[in-house]
């Protein structure tokens, strides 16, 4: 089985590193080739890494509440780079405070994310879906 490449990182000025390390381990154990950019990752770094590694998906984390601002324009930057149709997920604490989930989800879908995950998502909660979305 050929292994799919995913780019992983925590966007913006966010330094929450623990979930990122856990995701790297879980995705690697699940057979993915993981390119982990760590924390404090800019949009540019995400785009470049996806291009360079010919990635199949981008997994964006945001824990600290600024995702709304930080993720704006990422899909557009990917389109501009010629990989506009790459699969893209986002997960974490996406907004400041505890807002109605359906609204949060809609907001980030509109920003171009294919799937949006709420706080406390466990690896086993989304990895099966990721495999399906990547045709595994």
């Amino acid at each position, binding site marked *: 089985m050929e292994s799919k490449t995913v780019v992983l990182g925590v966007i*913006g*000025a966010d*330094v929450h590193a623990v979930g990122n390390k856990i995701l790297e381990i879980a995705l690697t154990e699940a057979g993915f080739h993981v390119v982990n950019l760590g924390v*404090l990752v800019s949009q540019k770094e995400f785009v470049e890494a996806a291009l360079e590694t010919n990635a199949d998906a981008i997994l964006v984390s945001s824990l600290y*509440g*600024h995702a709304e*601002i930080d993720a704006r324009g990422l899909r557009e930057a990917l389109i501009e780079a010629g990989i506009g149709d790459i699969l893209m997920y986002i997960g974490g604490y996406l907004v*400041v*405070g*505890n807002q109605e989930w359906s609204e949060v989800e809609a907001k980030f879908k509109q920003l171009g994310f294919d799937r949006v995950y709420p706080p406390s998502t466990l690896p086993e909660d989304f990895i099966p879906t990721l495999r399906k979305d990547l045709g595994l």
Partner: protein
Amino acid sequence: MSEGLTHDKLDWNELKEERAQVLASWPTGREVDLDEALEFHRKLPAELNFAKRLLQAKAEGKTLAQPRAGVADLNSHLQLLLYLQDEGETDLLPTTIDSYTRQNRYEEAEKALLESVREGRSLLNGFPAVNHGVAGCRRIVEGVSRPVQVRHGTPDARLLAEITLAAGFTAFEGGGISYNIPYAKRVPLGDSLRYWQYVDRLVGFYEEQGITINREPFGPLTGTLVAPCISHSVAVIEGILAAKQGVKNITLGYGQCGNLVQDVAALQTLTSLAEEYLRAEGIEDVELTTVFHQWMGGFPKDEAKAYAVIALGSTAAALGKATKVIVKTTHEALGIPTKEANAQAIRTTKQVLNMLQDQALPESPALAEEREIILQETRAILNKTLELGEGDWALGAVRAFAAGVIDVPFAPSTFNLGRTMPARDNEGAVRFLQWGNLPFPKDIQNFHRAKLEERGRAERRPPSFQMVVDDIYAVSHGRLVGRPR
């Protein structure tokens, strides 16, 4: 920046040029007028001075409660603090700074601030104090009737300190290690140490003028399975570095690990270790107090369960006689808390503190043993650090981190070696599965090995990285030790 770094006191006059640059780095820097600021501080009633309030609590043997809180807009932030004061019955107030400001991205903060005002909700996870400037910040200090502290996570907090201290804040959290290693990725440790020497020297200047400002290294670091010896080492070093710059009122911090004996032992050794190493530097006139952070790792989503975690933290703080406790909320695993949730958590905390006010964890062999372990481990780390620094704590810190002699688990910084692997023992105390380059003597190494083997036997699995993962999720899944499912 960090060329020629030493732990010696900076010359105030030589700092002039740097100050001018710092103050020019954002328009509000112009508002800083030290003479006017000193005048304001002199008129501030004693009960609004954070440092004095802490000393009073220490003298009375009381533990004070302090929340975290910060929103973008000035008026909303003031309302929030007033609510926590009146409905939360809090002893101390915070002003938590947003994450853009923490990275000195004032432009982004400005944009988000404007958008927040426009949308009528905070798009920032804290209060952008630099953007609000001296006059704005002063409205906070003047508007409340509890002492207020600046809480953040900023590797380079020079401008933030200039502005908030000039505005009348009387306490400033952070330090060159504790606000770098867990809060940054590529800021060289020497740089942040030097930035924080500036901050400490500024506080020292206020002190020279008769105004005591409280300084507090950030104890919990990454908040995730940080064993006492790691956070104590950082606390002692930052305490010494601050004292060298003339700081006289220091609060040393520690984040709850979860095993009651380990937590109380940690609190009991924190100031004694600091005194020991300060004395060795010939420093005897620093007032030390302690802060205990309620559980800093992942919380349970269920608010009822979160109340339990909050109360347990308060219990350890009270039985360990911390001077203050930083309060989490039942919204911890949901997002930034509402003011109601924040106030409730303070009241829960205060009820525990009050009910345990006259009690302490009784002295016992187990407690003494735990203290001894912490003392030996921390001394091993600190002595090696000083050795690496050839007698200089600032240099020693840089070299110790490079060598993994100090090593913070799960830290994002590339200047942290990241070779240790903590895990809980069978009673929930945080131990080391791998101690990397921590300079532990053989008997301490054997102690950790034995403790984890004991757990392994109880769980019928060899000690391994899976234990660490299980421990990380454990509290949010309703327990302390991550037992196999």
